[in-house]
């Protein structure tokens, strides 16, 4: 609670109330501009969730994970497989056992996605625990690529992931008996599908945020930071570094898994294309930009690095046409430049991020 707790308590309360109101009204205000903007807001929340998950591994425990998108992918694919007819079409035995489809309730489905992702986190964690920072980065990068290659190719001889075509026909989330693909009529006003998703994502993001904040001050959080600052010293102080690091991997991965499940349900379609290396790097850039280990900084970093490219997508072309007469640089290229340069510049000029963390790193 860096910025907030230092102010008098009632001021903090007002700030929280104000932000809460803005977040509640935001989708309706954005909806006036067009549905695309509500979608952008929902995706921004998804990225905040992912960045907060990565922050546990990178920011708290100081383990640079360049393959974080693998956990996002695991969550998305587990959700997709369990909520689409794909598995039943492929395996007649399953179809015979579940003639109506799986139809798992949301409170089983989402924890299951989180658990699967956490399992992969531990799987990755085990062999790489002894590695130092830079080796770890490369190995996690390789892990991310391996997961993507498998997703791309596990369509033969057993069709598990349907290869590059991806999985379609994913059922929408159903919250308290109401499928989110239907607008919700609440008497005075109606909530559209997009707005419903926005509020669900908002609730989950706030939950992840709360968990992150509470973890920061917990026993395990302090153990992570001790490892980040000096592993040898942490070990000497009696911290079981191996287990604590594994928990960081599992915890970060499970957040990624939940975000993946949300992505899958929101899109109704997943394919390996969404889980490339670039996504992992974007997430690292978000964490680094805001300030590794600083929850509010990470939220800011994720919002900035999601919002600016979206703005560029809409503004870059008209501005270039106006000033130069033709389009010189595609918005996609500008987006990549933004990510790359922001990582370089922030490390050179302000290594602790836009909002510095509360405990200085040596």
């Amino acid at each position, binding site marked *: 609670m860096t910025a907030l707790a230092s102010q008098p308590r009632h001021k903090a309360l007002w700030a929280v109330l104000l932000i809460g109101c803005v977040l509640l009204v935001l989708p309706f205000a954005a909806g006036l501009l067009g549905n695309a903007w509500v979608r952008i807001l929902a995706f921004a929340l998804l990225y905040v969730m992912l960045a907060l998950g990565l922050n546990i591994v990178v920011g708290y425990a100081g383990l640079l994970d360049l393959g974080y998108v693998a956990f996002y992918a695991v969550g998305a694919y587990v959700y997709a497989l369990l909520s689409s007819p794909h598995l039943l079409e492929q395996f007649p035995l399953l179809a015979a056992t579940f003639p109506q489809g799986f139809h798992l309730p949301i409170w089983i489905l989402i924890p299951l996605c989180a658990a699967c992702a956490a399992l992969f986190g531990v799987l990755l964690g085990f062999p790489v625990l002894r590695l130092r920072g830079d080796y770890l980065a490369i190995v996690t990068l390789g892990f991310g*690529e391996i997961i993507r290659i498998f997703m791309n190719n596990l369509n033969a001889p057993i069709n598990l992931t349907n290869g590059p075509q991806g999985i379609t026909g994913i059922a929408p989330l159903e919250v308290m008996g109401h499928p989110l693909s239907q607008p919700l009529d609440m008497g005075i006003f109606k909530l559209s599908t997009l707005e419903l998703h926005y509020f669900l994502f908002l609730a989950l993001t706030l939950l992840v945020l709360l968990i992150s904040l509470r973890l920061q001050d917990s026993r395990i959080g302090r153990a992570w930071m001790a490892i980040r600052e000096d592993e040898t010293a942490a070990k000497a102080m009696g911290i079981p570094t191996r287990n604590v690091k594994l928990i960081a991997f599992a915890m970060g991965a499970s957040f990624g898994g939940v975000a993946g499940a949300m992505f899958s349900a929101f899109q109704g379609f997943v394919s390996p294309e969404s889980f490339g290396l670039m996504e992992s790097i974007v997430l*690292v850039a978000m964490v680094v930009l805001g300030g590794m280990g600083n929850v509010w900084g990470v939220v800011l970093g994720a919002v900035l690095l999601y919002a600016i490219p979206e703005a560029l997508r809409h503004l870059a072309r008209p501005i270039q046409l106006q000033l130069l007469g033709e389009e010189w640089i595609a918005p996609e290229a500008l987006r990549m430049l933004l990510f790359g340069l922001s990582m370089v510049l922030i490390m050179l000029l302000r290594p602790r991020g836009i909002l510095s963390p509360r405990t200085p790193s040596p």
Partner: protein
Amino acid sequence: MDILLQQLINGLVLGSVYALIAMGYTMVYGILQLINFTHGEVLMVGAMISLLVVNALQSSLPALPPAGLILIALAASVPVCMALSALIERVAYRPLRNAPRLAPLITAIGLSITLQTLAMIFFSPNPMVFPDLLPTTPIQIGGAFLAPKQLFIFVVSLALMMALMFMVQRSPLGRSMRAVAENPQMALLMGIDPNRIVAITFMLGAALAAVAGLALAMNYNIVHFTMGFIPGLKAFTAAVLGGIGNLPGAVVGGLLLGMIESLGAGYIGDLTGGFLGSHYQDVFAFAVLILVLVIRPSGLLGERVADRP
């Protein structure tokens, strides 16, 4: 056709390129304990410059023999890559030399993305064709075929690696490099400027990367702005496999990795009863990397390196 022999040949040729790239990683790591993530991008820039020069020369001087073409292409790409690499070191790594370990790694990833994007903007977002410079009639060896370009790549790579190793072992510059790798402060007391040596190390690695860029472009006949990334990772794997910081290790690691990959991709289908196919080629390098780091982190030829914070 003898598949085993053919895969061995392909593996050795590919492996010699990996080894050439791995030299750059391992030299820099030996001195700074830093993984120079931008190395693959330097290679890509080298290949791009070579393509520009080759295209320009082929249209203006069609009579030029292939050897002349290759030499002029290298004469242009090698200095550009050296300058680029020195610039990267000066701007992105030197200010962070005493920062926490993750800081230079993050700038390196950022720079890598930036360089790729710049290449995409300045050259082309699509793969570009690299023309055949050497005759394409393959040489028959037993039941396998060796393309002249493969022979060329293999011979040039080996020669350059030998030359570099000789230089590091025998020349005064090489002695300074080893001294800085051993202990920068002590080297400074002996009158060696570590900053200069570090810059030279980056430039030497970049020169080899430029040659490797041309080699990859010749081998696959394609130049693309992402072409440096995966070979860069694999070369890093090769350096780790041989023992990072160790030049002969990089050669052994590169050649071994090339062969593991090509044999693996050639035989994985038979070994797994058709369950996994040759499109899993890229998995091998990463699997090797993870295995080496878990079983023998110091690599095949490396001595145990103390944990420097």
